[in-house]
Each structure stands twice: as C-alpha cells, then as structure tokens.
C-alpha cells in the first residue's frame, strides 16, 4: 500500500494542479479531453479531480465501460437462455442492466439460476462442479478482460468440459476511438487513453490517432497523480500543437503491450463488426470465437439470436457514451434513473459515467 500512497501524495497533487492551471491559462481556449476508460471516470470522481482543473479544461467521459455499451438485445438473449434452464455465470455489474423488458436481476428473482463471478475461472469451476448442467458465461469486456475470459475456452478444452460456453459481446477500444474521431458532431481535442487496456494492446495501438489530423493520445494510470500527469501531458501537447502518443504509464504499459495476452486473443478470436449500445455498429470493433471453437459459442450452440433490443427513448446514454452530452443533460438523471432504479446502462455499472457522476459529483461547487 505504501507503493500506492506515492501516487496519491497531496503535495505532489498540489504542485501538478498549479502546473495544469498555468498550462490551461497559457492555452487560452477550451480543451475537451476524453477519458476513454470507465475506471478513469471513476477515479476522477473518487478523487474529485474535476475540482482541481481550470475552467477551460473539460473532461468528457468516453465509451470505456463494457457493461454500458452492451446492447439490450444481448441481455434479452441471456435471459432467454436462463429461462431454458441454463445456468448463467456473470460479472455482478451485468445483473441490473436493463434488457428490452427486464434485467438479469428480475430473471433471477423469477427463479432462474444466475451465479455472480468475480473471475472467469469461477465459471469453469461451476461447470466442472455441475456436469449435468449447461453453464453459459456472459463474456463481455474490452481487451483487458478478453484474454482471461477466452482462457476459459482453453480451460474447458483441457478439462474436456462440454457443458461450458460463452455468450460473447467483446469490444475493442481502437475502432471505437476511430469512430468517435470521425464523428463530426463530437469535438475531442485529446484522448486520455486507458491504463489496463493499453497494458494489453500496447502504446503503439494509438499511433493511427496521432500525427497529422490526429490528437494527443496520453496513456495514464488510474491513481490520482497518474491522471493529473496525463492531463498535464495533454495540455503540454496542445500548447505545442503536437499530436503524439505519450505513454505516462510506462511502469506498466509497453509499446507492444502484453504479447502473451495478444496471442491468446488471436488464437481464439477473430475481429467482427459489433453493435455498441447507443452508438451503433462499428466495423471490426468486436470479437467472436473462431470456427474451430464454435462449440463454445453459446449463441451457436443454443441457436439464440442476439438482436439489438429496445431501450427507453428518453435515455441519452448513447450520447453520454459518445461524450456528446453529460449525465446532467438527461431528464431522467437522478430523477427516475438512479443506481437503485437504473433506466440506462451508464447508471448500472460501477464504471458507468452516470453512476460515477451520481455517486461522486452531485456536489455544488
């Protein structure tokens, strides 16, 4: 813990706050910095980072919460599987995500069997312990989570577990960044790039978004000083008119990422077009299991179609995920949509933008 304390040092934070204030003043215009990752959104809320920034530095929250970008139709498909008697294994965050008509939590209340797992390995254990039951793991997540989740297939092969399969809705970060940059309605001056995703995909993955026509891409860790350093790096580039990939999290992130995790992903998965809740379909932004492993693909195994589903029309989660609007712009936010009764997915996940704003930021300045 002493190691972590170094990245939360109040005196260092104050020094960085002053430097950022100076750079903000020198810039003299608004800087819209998108923090791509949900863990950054939470850390920014938890440490009150917005409070430390000058008025012209605006942090906008991006699409980096895997639960929030999961389509209502995916939840519908999972519920349909559970109603057929399959045991669902899932990360806890998925429980309250609204599907078209109900959530997994409602489904469990009706008697369906849904087990919450802290680790994908728990799903394999569950399947091995119940050989007479089909177990489906709800395989969502970005690059960070994908490698450990697909290792379930490896585990199932080794243990000859034929009763385990994955309902996949994996998402890849770089194609989403490309789609956001190409959207003329969204102004993004810089990306604060994710910490753990970058540890897998590597700093080089952001090269396409830098240079001519690009924006500064600064990789930052999740501790408060990491984030402040990242923002300082962004402002420094904006002042210089630069658009570089700057790895401020070099204690963890390598240029080529984690080769073992990338190999694992390539072995089992192939890129496919994927639908993002509130954004739409982004080319090559998802992964599905390669043909030789199709027996572990729950959608194929049980012939369950995953459609887009229907969502509450008043919910603006799509615009929130794209950074176009903030949770406070939503008529439902903190009124009818709260963590106890979530209407949109961004209010459900612990890393959702609306949940982070609700939890930490309803503080009048």
């Amino acid at each position, binding site marked *: *813990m002493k190691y972590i304390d170094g990245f939360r040092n*109040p005196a260092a934070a104050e020094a960085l706050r002053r430097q950022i204030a100076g750079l903000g003043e020198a810039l003299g215009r608004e800087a819209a910095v998108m923090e791509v990752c949900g863990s950054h959104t939470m850390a920014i809320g938890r*440490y009150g980072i917005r409070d430390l920034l000058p008025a012209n530095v605006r942090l906008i929250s991006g699409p980096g919460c895997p639960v929030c970008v999961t389509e209502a139709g995916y939840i519908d498909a999972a519920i349909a599987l559970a109603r057929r008697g399959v045991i669902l294994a899932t990360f806890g965050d998925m429980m309250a995500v609204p599907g078209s008509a109900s959530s997994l939590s409602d489904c469990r209340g009706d008697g369906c069997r849904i087990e919450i797992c802290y680790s994908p390995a728990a799903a394999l254990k569950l399947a091995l312990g119940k050989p007479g039951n089909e177990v489906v793991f709800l395989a969502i997540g970005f690059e960070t989570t994908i490698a450990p989740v697909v290792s379930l297939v490896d585990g199932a092969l080794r243990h000859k577990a034929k009763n385990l399969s994955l309902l996949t809705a994996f998402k890849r970060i770089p194609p989403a960044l490309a789609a956001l940059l190409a959207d003329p309605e969204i102004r993004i001056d810089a990306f604060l790039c994710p910490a753990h995703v970058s540890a897998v995909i590597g700093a080089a993955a952001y090269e396409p978004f830098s240079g001519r026509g690009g924006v500064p891409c600064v990789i930052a860790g999740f501790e408060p000083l990491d984030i402040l350093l990242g923002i300082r790096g962004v402002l420094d580039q904006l002042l210089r008119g630069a658009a570089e990939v700057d790895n401020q999290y070099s204690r963890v992130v390598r240029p080529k990422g984690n080769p073992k995790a990338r190999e694992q992903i390539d072995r089992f998965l192939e890129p496919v077009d994927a639908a993002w809740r509130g954004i739409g379909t982004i080319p090559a932004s998802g992964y599905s299991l390669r043909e030789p492993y199709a027996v572990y693909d729950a959608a194929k195994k049980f012939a369950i179609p995953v459609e887009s589903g229907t969502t509450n029309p008043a919910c603006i989660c799509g615009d929130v995920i794209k950074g176009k609007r903030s949770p406070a712009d939503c008529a439902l936010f903190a009124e009818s949509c709260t963590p106890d009764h979530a209407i949109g997915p961004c209010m459900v996940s612990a890393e959702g933008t609306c949940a982070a704003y*609700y939890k930490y*930021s309803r503080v009048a300045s």
Partner: protein
Amino acid sequence: MKESTIRLAHGGGGGLSRQLIETEIIPRFGEGPLRQLPDAAVLPPTDGAMVFTTDSFVVQPLDFPGGNIGDLAVHGTVNDIAACGGVPLWLSMGLILEEGLSLETLRRALDAVKSAAEACGVVVVTGDTKVVGSGQCDGMYINTSGIGRRLNGYELSTDRIGEGDYVLVSGPIGDHGMAVLSVRKGIEIAGGPLSDSAPVHRLVQSAGAWAKAVHFMRDPTRGGLAAVLNEAVEGRALDIELTENDIPVSPGTRAVAEMLGLDPLHSASEGRIVAVCAAHAAVRVLSAWRELPEGRTATGIGLVRSGEGRVIMRTLTGGKRLVDVPRGELLPRIC
C-alpha cells in the same frame, strides 16, 4: 455427548434436547437466572430508563479472521444498546441450528458467546434452541436481544446535530466487512484485515461527563461510515465535510478494498462508534475514548456545516467528492 453433529432430535424437546442443554448450555451459562431453566428470566428493577434491542446474526462463514458468529452476536447487540447511550445488562440468546452442524463448531460459537458476554459484563439470562432440517439454514443463526440501563445525560437524535459540530470515530473503520469478505473471496494476504468485533459501551460510559454535548451516536455496521453519516444529515440543512486524510483505515482493510474495488467507507465495523458532538466537547470526548484500549486511535474526521443533507469529502489529492450510501448487494450476510 457421543454424537459429533447436531441431529433433528436435538431440537425435539426429548432426551437429546435435554442432553444438549445440559452438556453445552448449562456449563457455560447456568450460573445466573438460567440455572433452573425457567421459561422466562425474572430480572431486578433498574434505575431510570431502560434500553431494549434485538438483532439476528447470519454471518457466513461462521468463523472469520478476528472473531466468529458467537462474539459477533454479543457485540452486535451490546453495541446497539451502547449507541443509544445505554450500558448493557442482560442478553437473551436464540439458536437456530441446522441438522448436520458439527458440535465442534457449535461449541466454538458458544465459547465465544460466553467469553464475549463476560468481557462485556452482560449476563445471558434466557435462551432457546431450535434445530431445522439440512438445507433449511446455513449452519447456524443466532438471535440476541439485550436490555440495558440508559446513562444519564445522553439525549441522542439527528435533530440535535448542528452547524459547527465535530464528527468523531473511535478507531479504524471497515475492518469487519473486509475481513469477512476477504475469507469469502479467498484473499488470504499477510497482514490482511481482522474483524474489529468488540464492545463499545465502555467508550460511551467513559464520555459520560460530556454526554449532553454528544448529539448523535451510531455503531457503523452495515453500510459503514457512509451510511451512518448520510443518515445523520439526511433531510437537514446541513452537510458533513470529511477529510479523507483524517479517516483511519487499517492497512489490511485498505489493501483488500483496493483489490476488490470497494470503498472502506461502505464497509461495516463491529467494534467502533461514531459520534457527532458539540465543538467545545470534541477534544474531551476524544481524550476520554483514548484512555481505553478500544479508543486508543480515536480521532476527529470531519465537521458539520450548513448545506443540503449531503456528506462531502475533501480527498487526498485536494478535490471534493460526494460520499454516497452503498447500493446493491455489495456485502450480503456479514453479520
């Protein structure tokens, strides 16, 4: 007893029931009013107002780092009495046992009840034992009710909290919740969290001279410090402003909270007391608490200001954030 596990007949009222009571209950609790196993305890009159409370304990696992269901069942009820300004006197103990429970586990829990009650100065004066079929309860549940005598001077109510009051805590927060969770999640780390399960009534007694200046007290169990403080100012034109750097959190609890992405402010304590008291008495109350081993690290953590019913924290890095109540099924069955 020859059997090594509880059988349904242990709760049937016949020979095995009697044997269980004679071999396990009477030797531990038979000195006082329980001696002749009356249907109810007859208790002497007390001075002044009485405090009465009840609580049920369904913690899982039954044994956890720093305690077990037995001492928790004593401390939980003792502390509810203490948080109302009371000194605990008598306890009841209702046991619900699952068929198949090992006698060794039962004995460990009963030993813990006995030693915790003695250490707290309370007497188990009445009780009951039921056995349910296998699968109908999770090992064992304990219900305890407690009667105490209210100390003079304590008039505790959220209505008495006012601007300028100080928020005090008797020691590191969140240890119990993280200790239980760490065993349940299989996180066994050197120096990991230990439950803080302990009585707090001596702290309440020790500050008796300044009782009138203490406006509100709670033991921060389920929902942790965050829930208690939100409840304290909810609906009032007041905010509580905490300073993160001043809130004591033990290293083991911090480590597990970081690993699981949980907030120690949402984690239960079972041996701490939180008080909101007038500024002039804050140092006095803290000094009195610090005289006792259980209050040695007591400290002030925040202030009450005019506001709109929120708990706000000045973070380590100098920013401000809201401290919300915990939501969802974060920590089920920790007590």
